[in-house]
């Protein structure tokens, strides 16, 4: 579903991403681990065609994203670290707007309320202005947009950083439910615990290169930590 083939991105003389190969199938949660500047966000940006690859190719559902960026975006949902919404509009209005942009048509009100419910935002919150929302609540609205879109793949950029533990765990379960429904997920993080908890596969990135790709079920939390620290040291 999400696929990178020899993906390379250079900014001037600096190589941000070096010949990355990835293939994430439906139902998989692939977690990219790495320090700041390892190339995680660059990978996400390349999947969204916000930047153009220097070499290699990115495919979503078999379509090259540089060839038809708008069509490929219909299949993915992107959830940034900081979800930003229109502060003067209510949560429901934000959901209404963004879901209509994603689908090209407005959803009926009942469906919107149902989506709010699915991400466990109550009706009281739905009508409050978003400027009063916490970070987690804003993120839930955005997940509701992803649900509305019925995206086949999720791209997540540091989704849990800055969330309180309860919100983070709520988020993880939402993600798991989605992947059980056949969604392919690519998420970046530097939170090892979260990676181990949610991911089915884990990749470790260093200086633009994927240095390790593991099956999450086959490695323990402590081993993962040791492996990660070892890579960072080298």
């Amino acid at each position: 579903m999400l696929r990178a083939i020899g993906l390379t991105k250079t900014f001037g003389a600096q190589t941000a991403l070096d010949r990355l190969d990835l293939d994430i199938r439906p139902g998989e949660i692939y977690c990219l681990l790495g320090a700041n500047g390892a190339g995680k966000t660059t990978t996400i940006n390349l999947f969204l065609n916000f930047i153009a690859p220097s070499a290699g190719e990115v495919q979503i559902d078999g379509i090259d994203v540089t060839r038809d960026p708008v069509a490929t975006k219909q299949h993915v949902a992107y959830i940034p670290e900081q979800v930003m919404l229109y502060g003067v509009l209510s949560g429901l209005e934000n959901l209404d707007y963004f879901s209509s942009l994603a689908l090209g048509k407005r959803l009926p009100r009942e469906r919107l309320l149902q989506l709010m419910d699915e991400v466990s935002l109550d009706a009281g919150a739905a009508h409050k202005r978003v400027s009063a929302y916490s970070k987690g609540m804003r993120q839930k609205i955005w997940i509701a947009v992803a649900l509305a879109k019925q995206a086949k793949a999720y791209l997540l950029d540091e989704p849990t950083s800055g969330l309180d533990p309860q919100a983070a765990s709520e988020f993880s379960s939402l993600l798991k439910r989605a992947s059980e429904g056949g969604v392919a997920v690519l998420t970046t993080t530097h939170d090892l615990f979260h990676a181990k908890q949610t991911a089915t596969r884990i990749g470790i990135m260093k200086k633009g290169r994927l240095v390790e790709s593991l099956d999450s079920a086959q490695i323990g939390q402590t081993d993962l930590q040791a492996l990660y620290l070892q890579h960072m040291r080298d």
Partner: protein
Amino acid sequence: MIALIARKDLLERGRDGRLYWAGSVVLVLLFIALAVGYGRQSEVRAEQKAAQALDYKDWLSQDQRHPHDAAHQGMHAFKPEAALAIVDPGITPYIGGTLWLQAHRQSEVKFRPAQDATGLQRFGDLSVGWIMQVLGPLLVIVLGFNAFAAERENGILRQTLSLGVSPLQLLWGKALALAASLAALLTPAALAAAVVVTLGADAGEGLDALQRFAALALGYALYLAIFIFLALGVSAASSTSRVALTVLLALWIGNAVIAPRVMSELSRHWHPSPTKLEFSKALSAGLKSEADRAWQMAFGTTERWGRDVPLNKWGYALQLDDQTGYAVYDRLYGQLWDTYERQQALQAWSGLVLPVLAVRAFSMGMAGTDFVHHRDFTTAAETHRRTIQDIMSRDLVANADPLGNQHFAYQAGPELWSQVKPFDYHPPAAIWALRRSLMSLSILGGSLLLTLAFAYAAVVRQRAL
């Protein structure tokens, strides 16, 4: 999709204070301008009409007198103030509206209202036109400067684009939202103006005034559209809202405040007008050489009114003198006025990049307060003056010249005066004005295309990051 984006932008703007305070300031000014304009105009027009009627009555009720003295008393031509002067007085404050049609010389328009005002007049006139030309773009900028920049700064733009929305759809959606909020704000003012203009127009000219108003409104719509796309383009091209605002304000000041003055200086330089002395010398020289030729042919002398022209030829001589002058006046005033029009055309062309100059030309043109309309009036008045002269001279040739050694002893009566019809001037129709303003309208259109191209390029190239 575009409608969805526009709907959200409108919803958001409706909850933002900017639309209300900026909009209400502009609205209040617009309504003051309309009220003041209407009050002043109804007074001026009534007065002009009364004066014009009185003038003709005075003409008809002349005693028995020599026709040339009647020509010296002459008639007045009062320029009827255009119905749309309420909306855009144009050059009205700087050009008089009173002509005294007298014997011998083509008269110049007198009594410029600005000369009866204080120096503050030079800051501008509070009219709908001034508000739209100067403050209109500012309103657009205040509403639209952060349309893209703010969403890029806080990351919403990135999210929106990740949903598969194309940047161009965003551009059109935001443009639509801006246009809709301006329309919501300005439509009441436009309707009020339309009513006031129709009320103020002479009987039977209401429809014409409405047509002119519709065209004028179209011009301002184009003008504001230019700034909508400029604001969106700059907003998309700027790294932050602050940069966008700074750039847009600089462009606005350059356009609305600096450009008219600089372009006036340049056009004056490019197509210089003669000085008063040069002009009157050229006129005198032209008149003299034409008359010399005519007098030499008719009387064998170039000396005017001397001993070689007997009194029984004075009627004929007067006619000759007048009629040889007509072509000279036509040529020299024609040249001067062509210079004015060339100066203005040069400035209108600069409207491609400085749209205020194009919209100013178009607005005045449609309001009937520009130089082309003034020229039409002056020409009509001068034609009337010549008609008076010709009727008087013809009568002298027929009745005074046969008297032999008498000339000024001859007196004509009311039958002669009534041969001259009253001066009844009606400004040309809307379609005439539109045809003459097509250039400035196309320049406005061209300018819109340019900004549209700029906005397209800026939006497509903009970084989501």
